[in-house]
């Protein structure tokens, strides 16, 4: 309860900032929006040259692409502060202040900022899903599954960020490691069968970003990978527990960087 109250304060604080820098905020959203739009233009140009990509047509690719942006955007919206943590909080000695407060440090670190720019990602994701809405044969069961899928796919992102952020307890800074792992999410935007075996293996079993977009999306489109939902729940929860474990380990070996 206390946590929800606190979260409200974080968000309110953020909106105050927003009002002060309205233009920045619009530019931020626009920036994300344009980035994603141009990627779609790329796909569109390509599909004017070829009929299908390993059996996937343009609408199907757009659905997968749009789907991938939803968990990405949600994670970006809610937990963006983990980036700041990995890049400077430990090294600048500011982590000490979180330890002094009677609330879980992980909670504070994760949710301290509310990154409204991410609306750009979510918005274009939703637009792309609407555009390719027809290619899915929707049933009530599928619709429920669709909604249930989203929190778990988002959890994969957040867990991975917590894990890589925890590394900075040992190394003081882990922004670059986080960046490498985070960038792997881009592989999930396209059907996994375009990649070779090694990459497919990595994004399915080791850094399971394929579960954030391709596997769910292909289930909705074609009914393939029927068991994806169980694997998704299992993998995301396992991943989350692992990230909590690494965070705990890290925090217990934390030494302040001084001053």
């Amino acid at each position, binding site marked *: 309860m206390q946590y929800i109250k606190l979260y409200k304060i974080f968000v309110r604080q953020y909106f105050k900032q927003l009002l002060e820098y309205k233009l920045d905020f619009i*530019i931020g959203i626009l920036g994300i929006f344009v980035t994603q739009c141009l990627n779609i233009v790329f796909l569109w140009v390509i599909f004017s040259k070829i009929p299908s990509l390993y059996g996937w047509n343009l609408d199907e690719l757009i659905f997968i692409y749009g789907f991938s942006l939803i968990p990405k955007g949600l994670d970006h919206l809610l937990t963006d502060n983990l980036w700041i943590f990995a890049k400077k909080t430990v090294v600048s000695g500011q982590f000490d202040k979180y330890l002094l407060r009677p609330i879980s440090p992980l909670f504070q670190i994760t949710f301290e900022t509310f990154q409204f720019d991410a609306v750009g990602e979510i918005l274009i994701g939703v637009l792309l899903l609407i555009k390719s809405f027809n290619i899915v044969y929707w049933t009530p069961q599928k619709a429920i599954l669709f909604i249930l899928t989203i929190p778990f796919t988002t959890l994969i992102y957040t867990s991975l960020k917590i894990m890589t952020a925890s590394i900075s307890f040992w190394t003081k800074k882990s922004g670059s490691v986080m960046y490498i792992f985070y960038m792997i999410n881009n592989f999930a935007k396209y059907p996994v069968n375009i990649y070779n075996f090694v990459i497919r293996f990595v994004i399915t079993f080791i850094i399971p970003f394929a579960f954030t977009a391709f596997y769910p999306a292909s289930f909705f489109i074609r009914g393939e990978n029927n068991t994806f939902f169980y694997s998704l729940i299992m993998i995301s929860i396992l991943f989350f527990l692992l990230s909590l474990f690494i965070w705990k380990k890290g925090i217990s070996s934390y030494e302040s960087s001084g001053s």
Partner: protein
Amino acid sequence: MLSRLQKYLPFAKAGIKISTTYKLDFLCYRFGDMLEAIITYFLWLSIFNSSSSNRISGFSFNEMKLYVFVSFFISIIIKTGVNESIGEEVKDGSISIRLLKPINFVNTYLFTEIGIRLLQIFLLGIPIIIFITGSYIIFKIKLYYNFLYIIAFVISFAISYLTNFYFNVCVGFSSFTLKNTWGSNLFKQAIISFASGSVIPFNFLPNVISNILQFMPFSSLIYFPTMIYLGKYTPYKLLNILIFQIFWLIFFYILSKVIAKVALKKLEIQGG
């Protein structure tokens, strides 16, 4: 001339020191960027496999492969943080220290950056050159280039670097009122990566759009150097392109001077 350059030598040396301190960080970040190029590579591989012909819009797969990695390499090397440095220093007032020095203050940024780049070109260039030459030998791809093309590529690349630098000086001075530089950077990056040809070679776009983009300054950043590397131009066309690139470089050089002058006139720094 030499003594003029000598004044900037300490800045270049500082740049080299900066990049040696953060070399691991740099490599990690560029490895993350590299993943994007790898995705593009696989995407093109599947595109060529799905196509009924060997060439799409005049590109063979081998050329496309080179295009992806060469343009990636160029985009990393020409990257500059000058717009952010200017923005921050104007905001916190530390730019006044630069302005007080009896040297051209834009050049101080330039030489620091060149120092930073030197090590980075070395760190990245060697594995990439080995990779490219290796793929030439292993896959027996025709070697297009002769001495002329290599020289032209190096010149074109250097112009590309400077054009991007002065363009970002303009951006830095015109956008330091923004706080959220992350968003505006993303916006700029998206437009430029498309208009410079790093997302897709212009040849794939409809003719009209391709022609417009080729006449815009950003084609000079990545598209032209990469196409020169691929040996796509006749010597005559090559010369025209280099002249075109120089034109835009001069344009941004002058523009950056004008914008800097206007911005600095309005600059007020509180305290010290």
